[in-house]
């Protein structure tokens, strides 16, 4: 295994990217360098505080909720007397105790904070308890007596489609006449795939504390990707103005989308209980409660009809994506939209019709998860590539290449955005060569001829992912920068730190502006009273938005310092410069701290906000046309797997990745994001299986039954490279590109490689159907099914 960041030689890394940056005189601040995570030392020593680690406040209580045990029904009676009498219980509330709004739906209504006489999924909170300990609260809620009148529950996408049970109306994107194009094409194929959901499994579960303030307000500490939304919803349930609620998020122990909207309910319930008792309340979900009560990545059931020529080039396609949204809209409108936007992945679909349905089921409301529907959309078109390849007897890579978007033609998406600055073909050729794809392809065919039980598979899949919130108004950010008289800098912005390294990157940006050591910049908890009205840290946009906002704030202060220098020393601005922790004014040199003190004495404001909004983007949902994305992030992966045709077990042997992050702000962090996203994407498609029973109860509700990748699942040969020296052509922060979500979809290469290995049992003549997650069981059935097909074909022949 190669390590790209060799700490032995230099803690600051010495890869190509950095040397490029060094050559370009990127300065002291550290942009372009592999600075360690701002909390790294605290992480390893256990000193980093998460919400559950905060010292208890005097009188602090602990919350738990009583949950629905059925998937759909009317609550006929609710007897909480035993709950109230239970040891340690201080308060019990139902929706009747909510002073303000009872609905906490983040975009559309539909999410009651506590059940409104009806339950819509197993696990839905019906009432809440505050008790003197976490365990006593959990024990107490089990004592409720609830009588239901059961209603029919919708528990499959097929059922929801048949009943037209939707959380939001269907939507179609169209370019040209797909039906005619398919009919006129030389070849036609159709198929369907079931794509499983995914539990976030952030290591730190959902948690919030609420502390009442002297003016009837509330201070909330929440493990949330969206503190401003928590603030708004807490204010609304308590029926108090927004300026009485402060939400503080220093860091999350992982988010991945699961704490975008679904951190809020627990904060709201803690706030309601705190309001009821006038005592601080902590609400920490146990792991199994977290897994049962919070939404997941949407499972999808997708299908396609495609027409293509004998080279395998698509002439027309009809795609339908059907998202299982659960019982309420939550973010599903935008998530299914993104599944539709990314139904092309990196391929020109020519005449295309893409329809998305938002199916309403009696399960927990599914929510944001890294990729936000994009991965589920891409799965279908990647299946199409494999299916066409097997049909024509070609290598799937050949089919993928021939269908890529062109540079000057064949470059308009089905939502009518022109794909610009497209270097996917070059990226794929580079990776094809560096990964030795063709030679390995040959070796694998040989291996498969020689081995009866074990078979190998190889696949290269690309990713093209649109960057921007598709809801336009969210593409804005604010920041707040203070410079103190000792020359230290305080940085705050609207983005939240969930491990992705956002705080580190933004600190590097600010340090770069002032040309000071990055250690000079102190990062601080995201707080709604410092930077207001923030967007969620989501859509991979954290650094793009907040980095620019912080840069703007720093530049404002810097401009004031330059102006002060000009006035004070009677010089022109062009002889004032910031370098190496110093300020040069003409021939004089001051330390940054000294100069800041002079500015303070000269009554210069050393604090500024900064603001940014993404340019160029627009999308008209009524016509399905526009430019929803500022730019695209791209990458590709080659994975090689080994399968056991007797058991379906498999192992990932090697993965090569080439990913484009533009001008990397921090190569170590970017590579960490790519590796982590890839493994998470692989887990989604392989071992991570969500199982609900026929009553709508989640059976895979703990880590003993739900298996995220563990350490041996990481391939022993794992090669990750950044596309060298390729700045983003759009004016993003230091011409970098977003990295949070795009590499997640590189995991699709593992699924495609598994199918390649399976296809070998029938001499690559058929395309296996492999729903996901591709557990060993599904792999074995796919092998058997192909063996049977092969046998039938040879009998007929």
């Amino acid at each position, binding site marked *: 295994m190669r390590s790209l960041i060799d700490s032995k030689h230099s803690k600051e890394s010495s890869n190509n990217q950095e040397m490029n940056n060094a050559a370009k005189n990127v300065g002291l601040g550290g942009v372009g360098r592999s600075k360690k995570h701002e909390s790294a030392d605290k992480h*390893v020593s256990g000193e980093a505080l998460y919400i559950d680690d905060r010292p208890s406040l005097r009188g602090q209580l602990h919350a738990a909720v009583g949950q629905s045990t059925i998937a759909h029904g009317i609550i006929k009676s609710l007897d909480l007397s035993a709950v109230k009498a239970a040891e340690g219980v201080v308060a019990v509330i139902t929706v009747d105790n909510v002073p303000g709004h009872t609905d906490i739906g983040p975009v559309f209504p539909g999410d009651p904070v506590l059940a409104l006489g009806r339950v819509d999924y197993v696990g839905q909170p019906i009432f809440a308890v505050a008790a003197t300990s976490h365990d006593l609260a959990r024990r107490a809620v089990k004592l409720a007596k609830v009588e239901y009148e059961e209603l029919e529950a919708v528990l499959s996408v097929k059922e929801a489609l048949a009943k037209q049970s939707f959380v939001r109306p269907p939507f179609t994107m169209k370019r040209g006449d797909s039906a005619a194009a398919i009919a006129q094409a030389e070849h036609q194929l159709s198929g369907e795939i079931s794509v499983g959901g995914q539990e*976030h499994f952030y290591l730190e579960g959902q948690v919030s504390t609420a502390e009442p303030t002297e003016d009837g307000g509330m201070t909330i500490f929440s493990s949330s990707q969206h503190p401003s939304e928590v603030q708004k919803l807490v204010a609304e349930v308590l029926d108090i103005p927004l300026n009485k609620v402060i939400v503080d998020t220093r860091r999350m*122990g992982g988010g991945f989308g699961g704490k975008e909207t679904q951190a809020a309910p627990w904060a709201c319930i803690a706030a309601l209980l705190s309001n009821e008792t006038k005592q601080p309340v902590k609400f920490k979900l146990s792991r199994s409660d977290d897994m049962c009560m919070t939404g997941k990545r949407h499972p999808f059931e997708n299908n396609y009809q495609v027409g293509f020529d004998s080279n395998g080039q698509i002439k027309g396609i009809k795609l339908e994506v059907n998202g299982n949204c659960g019982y309420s809209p939550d973010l599903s409108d935008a998530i299914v939209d993104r599944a539709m936007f990314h139904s092309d992945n990196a391929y020109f679909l020519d005449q295309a019709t893409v329809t998305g349905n938002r199916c309403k089921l009696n399960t927990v409301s599914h929510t944001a998860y890294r990729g936000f529907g994009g991965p589920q959309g891409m799965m279908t078109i990647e299946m199409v590539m494999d299916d066409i390849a097997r049909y024509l007897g070609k290598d799937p890579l050949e089919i993928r290449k021939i269908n890529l978007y062109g540079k000057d033609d064949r470059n308009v998406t089905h939502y009518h955005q022109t794909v610009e600055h497209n270097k996917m073909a070059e990226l794929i050729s580079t990776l094809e060569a560096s990964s030795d794809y063709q030679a390995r392809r040959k070796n694998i065919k040989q291996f498969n001829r020689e081995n009866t039980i*074990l078979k190998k598979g190889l696949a290269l899949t690309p990713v093209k992912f649109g960057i921007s919130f598709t809801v336009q108004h969210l593409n804005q950010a604010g920041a707040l920068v203070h410079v103190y008289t000792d020359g230290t800098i305080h940085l705050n912005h609207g983005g939240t730190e969930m491990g992705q390294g956002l705080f580190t990157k933004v600190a590097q940006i600010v340090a770069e502006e002032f040309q000071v050591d990055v250690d000079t910049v102190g990062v601080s908890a995201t707080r709604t009273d410092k930077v207001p009205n923030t967007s969620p840290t989501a859509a991979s946009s954290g650094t793009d938005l907040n980095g620019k906002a912080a840069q703007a704030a720093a530049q404002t202060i810097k401009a004031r310092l330059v102006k002060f220098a000009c006035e004070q020393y009677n010089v022109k601005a062009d002889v004032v410069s910031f370098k190496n922790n110093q300020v040069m004014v003409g021939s004089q040199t001051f330390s940054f701290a000294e100069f800041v003190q002079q500015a303070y004495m000269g009554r210069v404001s050393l604090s500024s906000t900064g603001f940014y909004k993404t340019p160029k983007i627009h999308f008209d949902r009524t016509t399905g046309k526009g430019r929803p994305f500022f730019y695209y992030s791209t990458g590709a992966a080659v994975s090689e797997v080994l399968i056991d045709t007797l058991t379906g077990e498999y192992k990932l042997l090697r993965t090569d990745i080439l990913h484009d992050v533009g001008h990397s702000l921090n190569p170590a962090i970017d590579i*960490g994001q790519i590796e982590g996203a890839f493994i998470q994407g692989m887990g989604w498609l392989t071992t991570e299986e969500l199982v609900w029973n026929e009553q709508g109860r989640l059976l895979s509700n*703990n880590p*003993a039954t739900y298996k995220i990748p563990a350490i041996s699942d*990481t391939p022993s040969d794992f090669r990750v490279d950044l596309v060298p020296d390729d700045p983003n052509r759009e004016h993003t922060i230091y011409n970098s590109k977003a990295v949070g979500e795009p590499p997640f979809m590189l995991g699709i290469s593992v699924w495609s490689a598994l199918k390649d290995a399976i296809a070998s049992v029938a001499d690559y003549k058929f395309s296996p159907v492999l729903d996901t997650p591709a557990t060993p069981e599904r792999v074995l059935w796919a092998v058997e099914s192909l063996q049977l097909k092969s046998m039938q074909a040879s009998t007929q022949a």
Partner: protein
Amino acid sequence: MTTSAVRFLLNNDVVTIENIDPNLTVLQYLREERFKSGTKEGCSSGDCGACTVVVAELREDNQALNYKSINACISFVGSLHGKQLITVEHLKQGAKLHHVQQAMVDHHGSQCGFCTPGFVMSSFALHKQNSTPNRAEVLEALAGNLCRCTGYRSIIDAAMESSEDIEDDSFAQHYQQTVKQLQDFKTLPSAQLSNTQHHYFAPKSTAELAEKLLANPQATLVAGGTDLALSVTQNLATIESLVYLGDVVELHTIENNADEFIIGSAVPYSEFTPMLHDEYHELGEMIERIGSRQIRNNGTLGGNIGNASPIGDMPPALIALGADITLQRGDVERKIALEDFFVDYKKTVLKAAEFIKNIYIPKAKTGQVLKLYKISKRIDDDISAVLAAFFFEINDNVVTNVRIAFGGMAGIPMRAKQCETALLNKAFNRENISAAQQALTQDFQPMSDVRASDKYRMKVAQNLLQKCYLELQNKTIETRVVNYA
């Protein structure tokens, strides 16, 4: 009988605890009683490793220390008696990070940081036992720690980074002092802990244990606690009376005789595995996939047998080997075949006040071979959908002795008698294997659950017999993905 409070070293400080609920886990104790929040709660079920702490205890020679990673979330606080507990807070000295911490920083091995203290502690325990681990050893030591952010590459690189600093860290500097203190603890009488409602007792001899159980047959036996503790942390049960087996000297013995191993029921996996690995390679390999290192440092053979789970991995393997066990009640001891121990789902022949004493595992005679297959969704730390154990003695291509047992195929770990009949005293050939595969449908009607469907279980059971046959026919054939290099 004389007893003492629970006494242990928290880093270098002697701690005595009494009047505390013995249902309390080490994690709760650290976070809620000692306000040490570096050790994290990720799952409270021993599956994620965020709560990993290290326990140092005296080796058999009473002179040297073993450093063991364990899951604080499913270890009862009483089990600390006589040991040294090391948490992540103890590693950093002043401003200087411990070498395993610094390596994690240098390799960018933390992202959100929540799993990090657990990884640091697992890596610390590994380096204390083996300062220059190879990749395989690192994977084995860290398989019980989940990270959702990094994809593990950086963590593996960090854990593989060796340093001579480990020879001179604060634990090395205090080594003799720690040894002396733990030796002193050995002289303490049996430990007990009580908060008036709930009681914990840790006898030091089988006599003391037998007497205690006769007096209180309702008491719950706990060894590693890796399964029992889940009833407390997940199902919110409260155990009234816990009797801890970890201090019973006779249950902690291993005998390596000419023709058999005798393993005390309270010996943790990690202590007897190397010995079994030498005799039955596939058994050793399989054990390394049972739970995680943390689990195997606490979990015991007696526990895996005693809890009578249909999906425990050791019983089918041991049944195939023809293992026996001894049970003791009062001063009466009886020896039975392990396969006769299991009666029905979670039901055994164990009488009230009786306990498992020893496990007798025969060594292989010439011509005998054990083949084992553990089928699960994930390679590391996953409960088996099917565990297949085949024990064959083949002479002149005729099966002269065969025992086949499965886990996950029935309500108890069970022999496949019809399948065996189809093979015994017959030629070891494809035709008879095929008949034996068919016979499995008479032996078992497996069920569908979250891990696998009934059809998959049956199909895999049949296919594994085929694979076993192929492997025995052709020793060079590549048939396993797990160990594929």
